[in-house]
């Protein structure tokens, strides 16, 4: 009977092409709108290191102006100073610790026969790579000794390795940049954290940096201060070193702590550190250290903007309106089928068989609406990506969302369509035959 119902359903859909197309389009539009916003919301609110989001902590210290909080009403700055970053990383009180900052510089791959170009760089510690599960295509990060000796080593992104070394294993190769020769120790595989929680200075969904080098090289090469720099009192002189020893904050400091006990111990260490700094005349404000894990940090940074959440609910409402419209269209179509329903009942179909027959038609309409909706959503997401730079990574529909959306379309259409189907089948056959 299932094949028979399928045949009848397809026959009915094809007999009323315009009506069926309108119903499918109505469902598809609702699904597409909902999917686009759902995909954006899902990507924005996803946690890229969910398996260790309770172990990674952003460190905030309040070195700010005694008369005015860094962030209203009474929050510490989001970044730390060079001094604090260096001190805390070197103290090694956490399982892993990483201070880092964005910078940039000229790369001059003359040996490779390429013209110089400006690259976005990140100065960071050796722990950065294992802390954030950075995937390597070739080689690895640098080691302890290399870091302590400020050796000239770099880790390249896959894209830069492709550009300079044609994608070959460049570990051990040299690269001229910043007026010196650096040795490549590692090449990253594809790596796009979304959101880029460890540093959202250029936006939560910005591309990762192209070149990574040891933190200490920032001072040696006097690399520019990328990202966000905040100062609450003037820097004493224009010398580069004066900035590094100022109260200006520019560096992201992350630590990895496995156990709650370790967190308590690290908090105690921070308290002790700040007290020590206070005795040196720094940290004029009351003790205000913060350790936020990844989820807390994303929430604090409001990665998922409220307007996106409002948009999501608006799109759900729109979907509901579309489904109600689809139900109206189905109802209008079924109104013309009363006589046929009555006839089928007279010829021996029971209530369940009639419900099954017309439900299958509704399911096919919902399925077509869902598939068309997904196609429209893909087009819509590409439109979003072209309108808003930096949202490129958000345009991809993942399999679970795609399947979920199609399921939603079918379920929504069936729920919306069953009402008219049920009411069309409910009268006794004699009444339907009269109609």
């Amino acid at each position: 009977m299932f094949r028979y119902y399928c045949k009848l359903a397809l026959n009915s859909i094809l007999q009323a092409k315009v009506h069926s197309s309108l119903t499918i389009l109505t469902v598809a539009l609702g699904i597409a709108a909902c999917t686009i916003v759902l995909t954006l919301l899902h990507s924005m609110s996803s946690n890229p290191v969910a398996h260790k989001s309770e172990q990674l902590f952003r460190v905030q210290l309040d070195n700010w102006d005694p008369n005015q909080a860094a962030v209203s009403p009474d929050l510490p700055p989001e970044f730390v100073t060079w001094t604090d970053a260096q001190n805390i990383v070197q103290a090694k009180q956490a399982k892993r610790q990483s201070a880092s900052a964005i910078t940039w510089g000229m790369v001059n791959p003359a040996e490779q026969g390429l013209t110089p170009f400006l690259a976005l760089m990140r100065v960071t510690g050796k722990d950065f790579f294992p802390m954030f599960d950075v995937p390597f295509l070739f080689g690895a990060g640098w080691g302890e000794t290399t870091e302590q000796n400020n050796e000239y080593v770099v880790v390249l992104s896959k894209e830069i390795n492709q550009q300079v070394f044609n994608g070959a294993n460049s570990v051990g190769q040299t690269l001229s940049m910043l007026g010196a020769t650096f040795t490549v120790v590692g090449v990253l595989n594809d790596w796009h954290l979304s959101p880029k929680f460890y540093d959202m200075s250029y936006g939560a969904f910005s591309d990762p940096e192209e070149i990574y080098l040891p933190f200490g090289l920032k001072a040696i090469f006097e690399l520019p201060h990328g990202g966000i720099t905040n100062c609450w009192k003037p820097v004493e002189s224009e010398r580069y070193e004066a900035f590094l020893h100022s109260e200006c904050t520019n560096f992201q400091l992350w630590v990895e702590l496995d156990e709650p006990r370790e967190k308590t111990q690290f908090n105690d260490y921070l308290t002790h550190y700040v007290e020590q700094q206070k005795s040196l005349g720094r940290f004029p404000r009351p003790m205000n250290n913060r350790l936020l894990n990844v989820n807390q940090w994303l929430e604090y940074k409001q990665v998922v903007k409220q307007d996106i959440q409002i948009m999501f609910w608006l799109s759900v409402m729109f979907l509901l309106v579309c489904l109600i419209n689809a139900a109206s269209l189905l109802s209008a179509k079924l109104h013309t089928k009363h006589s046929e329903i009555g006839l089928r009942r007279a010829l021996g179909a029971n209530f369940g068989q009639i419900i099954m027959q017309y439900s299958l038609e509704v399911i096919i309409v919902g399925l077509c609406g869902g598939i068309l909706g997904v196609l429209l959503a893909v087009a819509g997401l590409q439109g979003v990506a072209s309108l808003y730079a930096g949202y490129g990574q958000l345009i991809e529909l993942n399999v679970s969302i795609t399947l979920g959306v199609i399921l939603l379309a079918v379920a929504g259409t069936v729920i919306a369509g069953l009402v008219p189907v049920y009411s069309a089948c409910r009268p006794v056959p004699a009444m339907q035959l009269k109609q």
Partner: protein
Amino acid sequence: MLAMNNIGKVFTTDVVQTHALQDFTLQVDEGDFLAVTGTSGSGKTTFLNVAGLLETFDSGQYTLDGQNIKGLNDKQRSQLRNEKIGFIFQSFNLIPDLNLFDNVDVPLRYRGFNGAQRKERILQSLERVGLGKRLRHFPAQLSGGQQQRVAIARALAGSPRFLLADEPTGNLDSDMAQSVMGLLQEINQSGTTIIMVTHDQALAKLAQRKIIVRDGKVCDIGVSTIGLQPQELSAPRV
């Protein structure tokens, strides 16, 4: 075979109650050809709907082929209707989107026959009504008389014990009406019990028995002139 005792059926609206059937008592034996006549609104179509299990009844007792109808659920009623009853309607009630083969196929699908069984029955019944060569035609491509023949083929395909006909010639001209009535008589002679509702006294004369329904009751039972031929009919009322 078909026995109704004191059947009552009331249609209720917000403003009025209509007693469509009151103490309706009737017995139809196997092989009967019964004509049910009466004025408009007398209750003859309601009787046919109740007899065909298309409508429920409020009181009394109805036994069809030994089975008490009261208390059957929708599935049981549908199955009984499918197996034992064939319908012929005044307006043919063919499904316009389906060709003749598929129209006749409808009751057989619900009966659960396999493909080969269905095909055999469809071909046989369409052959019987003289339309065996027009399987792929659609209803709109046929005349009224031919459409009614398709409806008869559909009714016969499941080999029902009862054929219920509601004004089967009401939409046909006299020639076609004669042809359809001849077919019904032939079907009756082969053993199928026929109950036919009609306004037309001339048509009613062709049946073995005739009842007159008035105000929802059987008020007269008579035996028609058996052996009257369809060709002797006057033109049916339209």
